[in-house]
Each structure stands twice: as structure tokens, then as C-alpha cells.
């Protein structure tokens, strides 16, 4: 019974919801970066056989084979063609919609519908671009999926101010944060494990290649060569950092250091390899999941979830007095 209570309290810790505000703002920025970075290549990536680099029909077909119910751009373009919009106009509308939705998400206006529509459009773009999508798209979909199902409105949203609504159940906010935390632990564990299984991560070869092959060669190659002696150590540190993340991030004394190190690693990926969208989404997900606003998770949980045994007659009486204003 006590074990069940402990498990329940682990999965449903009461939470203020500030993490959700951070996730929403972060994903709003991510969506804005996504559309702005791809502005010049938008039609090339998502255009059909006659406009596109690869042709959207290929990505759509690959998605359709997996399941006909997965959103894709063909749905949107087909619907818009019925009101007289051609493919280029429809793609421009999707681009502008994502730009506006990113802005609304940033402000926290119409949180739920904005999150749902943004998730739908981003997923449709990621699926229709097919082989031209990469890890950043996938992780953005994960973030938007969690945002879409999260209990809104969050504390820093305009929705909350305008409608004077609050989230009913702080435990639900805690639960949704817990899902994100556990998912990140799985991501890092398997990412670290597969790196550990590659010989190139132990001798610096993989890091050398990551930093010197186009288009990741942001740093001049002679700089990387000058720092060649640190590559094996850095490679090993990255492997260990990722594979130990699920353990050290929960341990109070190491949590801040782990969070700092993993965010520094992703900042490095963004700046030194030019993978800005990938680095940004990983930092956003990590900070939303584990950034503690100066309070530890354990103490936060303990404060919000007093153990059943702590409900003494005195505390219950004090609560009643406080609630009834006697």
C-alpha cells in the first residue's frame, strides 16, 4: 500500500506548472526558428514533383504505407485546392500559419488550439519531407505532442491572465512533466548506449569526423586538428554523459551539474556543428523537464505531497483553520 502511494507520488507530484510555460515558450521559439531557417528552401523541401527537390509525393507515399491516418501535407494542399489555392499558395499559407502560430505560442494566447494546430502542421511537414527530415524534426514533434496534451493554461500564459482560469490539478502538471523526464532518460540512455558500442567514440575518430565533414565543418579544420588531443577524452565524456544521464539526473547532488553539462553539450552541437535546431530543441526539452527554479524536485515533491503518515491531527486542524479562516 505504502509502495503504491510512493509510486503514485512519484508519478503525480504537485507542480506549479512553470515548466509548461517554459516548454511552451521554448517550442514557440523553435517553431519560429524552423520556419525562418527554412524560408528560402520551403518550396524546394515541400514542393511536389515539379517544384520540389525530391517531390513531396515520395514522403507522402512513405507515410501512407505506414498508416493512412498520419497527417501529411497532401491533406492540407488537397483541401486548399478545393477553394482555388494552388500548391505554391498552399505551401506559403502553411509557412505563414506556422509563423503566426509560433508567435501565439510564444505569447500563450489560445494555448490549446494553437498547440494542436502547430503540432498538426509541423508533423505534416516532417512526414511529407520524408527523407529530408532529421532528428530535430522528430524531437520537435515529441515536444509539440507533449505540449498538446498538457494541462493548460500554464502560469505565464496570456490565456491565464485574460480568462482568469487556473489549472485545476497541480498533480496533472507534475504527471506530464514526469512523462517528459522519463522520456528524456530513455532518449539519452539509448543514444549513449549506441555511442558506447562504436569504437570511434572511444578513440576520438567519430568526434573528428563529426566536426570536419561537410556540412558540420563549422570550425576550420586546422583548429580541430590543433585540439586533436582532447577529442578522445571528449568522445568518452559524451558517451558517459549520455549513458549515465538517466541515473545522475535524478540524484540530487549531481542534478544541476548533469543538466549544465548536457545543455553545454547541446550548445556545442548547435554552435560547432551548425545544428542549431537540434541543439535548441534538446536544450528546451531538458530545461523544461529538469530546470528546477532554484528548488529541488525532491523537496518540491515533499512539500506538495505530504506522506499520509504526516497528516497528523494537528496538521489537519491547521489546514481546516486556514481554509475556513477561523
Amino acid at each position, binding site marked *: 500500500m505504502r509502495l503504491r502511494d510512493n509510486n*503514485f507520488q512519484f*508519478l503525480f507530484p504537485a507542480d506549479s506548472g512553470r515548466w509548461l510555460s517554459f516548454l511552451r515558450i521554448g517550442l514557440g521559439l523553435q517553431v519560429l526558428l524552423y520556419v525562418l*531557417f527554412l*524560408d*528560402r*528552401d520551403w518550396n*524546394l*523541401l515541400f514542393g511536389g*514533383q*515539379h517544384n*520540389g*527537390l*525530391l*517531390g513531396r509525393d*515520395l514522403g507522402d507515399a512513405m507515410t501512407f504505407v*505506414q*498508416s*493512412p*491516418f*498520419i*497527417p501529411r501535407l497532401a491533406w492540407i494542399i488537397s483541401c486548399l485546392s478545393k477553394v482555388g489555392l494552388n500548391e505554391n499558395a498552399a505551401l506559403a499559407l502553411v509557412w505563414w500559419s506556422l509563423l503566426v502560430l509560433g508567435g501565439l505560442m510564444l505569447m500563450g494566447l489560445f494555448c490549446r488550439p494553437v498547440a494542436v494546430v502547430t503540432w498538426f502542421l509541423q*508533423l505534416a511537414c516532417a*512526414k511529407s519531407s520524408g*527523407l*529530408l527530415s*532529421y*532528428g530535430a524534426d522528430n524531437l520537435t*514533434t515529441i515536444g*509539440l*505532442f507533449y505540449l498538446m496534451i498538457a494541462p493548460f493554461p500554464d502560469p505565464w500564459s496570456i490565456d491565464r491572465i485574460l480568462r482568469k482560469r487556473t489549472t485545476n490539478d497541480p498533480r496533472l502538471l507534475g*504527471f506530464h512533466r514526469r*512523462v517528459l523526464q*522519463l*522520456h528524456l532518460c*530513455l*532518449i*539519452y540512455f*539509448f*543514444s549513449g548506449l*549506441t*555511442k558506447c*558500442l*562504436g*569504437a*570511434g*567514440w572511444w578513440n*576520438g*575518430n*567519430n568526434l*573528428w*569526423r563529426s566536426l570536419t*565533414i561537410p*556540412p558540420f565543418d563549422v570550425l576550420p*579544420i586546422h583548429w580541430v*586538428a590543433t585540439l*586533436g588531443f582532447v*577529442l578522445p577524452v571528449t568522445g568518452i565524456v559524451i558517451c558517459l554523459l549520455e549513458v549515465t544521464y538517466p541515473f545522475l539526473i535524478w540524484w540530487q547532488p549531481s542534478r544541476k551539474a548533469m543538466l549544465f553539462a548536457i545543455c553545454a553539450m547541446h550548445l556545442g552541437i548547435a554552435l560547432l556543428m*551548425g545544428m*542549431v*535546431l537540434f541543439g535548441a530543441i534538446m536544450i528546451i526539452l531538458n530545461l523544461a523537464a529538469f530546470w528546477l527554479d532554484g528548488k529541488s524536485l525532491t523537496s518540491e515533491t515533499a512539500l506538495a505531497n505530504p506522506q499520509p503518515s504526516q497528516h497528523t491531527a494537528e496538521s489537519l486542524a491547521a489546514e481546516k483553520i486556514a481554509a475556513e479562516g477561523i
Partner: protein
Amino acid sequence: MISFWYWARIGWLFLHLLLVALVCTYETSWLVGKQLTIIPKVSAHFRNDVDKVPETLTGPNLPPDNVFRQVLNTYTNIAGIEVGYGYFAPNISETHALVFELRYPDGHLEYEAPLVSSHDGQLRLTSLIEQIGRTQSDPWRNELIRRLARSTWQRQPQALSIRGFFGAVTPPTLTAYKSGKNEHIFSCQYIYDFTLALRKGGGR
């Protein structure tokens, strides 16, 4: 008393994370099975056993119209959990490149790679080229290169013919670079000749 909705959420969390773990396990065991890791050669029997559990539960071998498979695929795709997270792992060996040779009416030749304008577009194009390099299917590789050739031709409509060179690029190792060998060695693996019909929307 924990309400039904709390139990439902716990059930969803368990299934969701189980799927994430299964997809990742499947990918990791695939890498081990293909001898791409430092793990010594495992027996085919053991490999099959390891593969079976996630394969059965994530359903890649079920027929495409199987309801279980479609529900699972829909859910994993909409949640973004359909692929694992082995980025840059286990190894970064060779990279791949695609170059088109364009022949113009006056006989001169120009060499051009598929072109995008932004750095993020370049990252996506690199991802595509690497997937072309990894595929074992000739028809699939041919189709992807044909589409890229057509896109290049549409950009350069004056060209009379187009020839594609696809191959592996071996970058210099750190030791080689330090000894003054800063060469990326291109080994051509496939050559494609495209006719004028391709530009007009079809043909090879």
C-alpha cells in the same frame, strides 16, 4: 482512493514509454546484428531471439493493412516516437556524395551538386544523401537519384544531358591530416545517365 482517470494515465504512460524503449531496443539490436558495433559476433540464433520481442510488439513484419500495425504506426508517428535516438552512432565511417555532370549545347561541361539555399536545408540534404548511400535497394536508390537529377535539370534547363556520379567520400583521419594529407577521397560507386525525357517529366 485513486480515481479511474489517474489509473488510465498511468496505463498510458507505461505503454508510451514501453513503445519508446522497444523502438530503441529494436534499433540497437539491429546495429548489433549487422556487426556495426564493438560487440563480438553474436550467433544468428541469439540475434533472432533478441530481435523477435520488439519486432512482435512493434509489428514491422505484419501486413500493411493489419489494424494493429496501423494503430501502432499512427500512434508512434503522431507522438514522434517511431525512430530511435542513435544520432552519430555507433560510428561515423565514410560519407557519401552526389555530383551531376551537365553537358551544354556548346559542348562544355559543368559539375553541380544538388542545391539548397540554407544551412538547415544542407543538413537535410546531407541526411538524404546518407540514406541513399546506406540503402541496399537498387530501384530505391535509382529513383531518389533520378528525382534529384530532375530537380537539378529544372534549374539548368539549357543542359542537353546529365550524368550523375554517386559514391563514398573518405575524409582524412586526424593522423593523415597532421602529416599533410588533407584529401577527401571520392570513390565512385554508381554512374547514371539521364536522357532529355527526364527534364520533360518522366523517363530515365
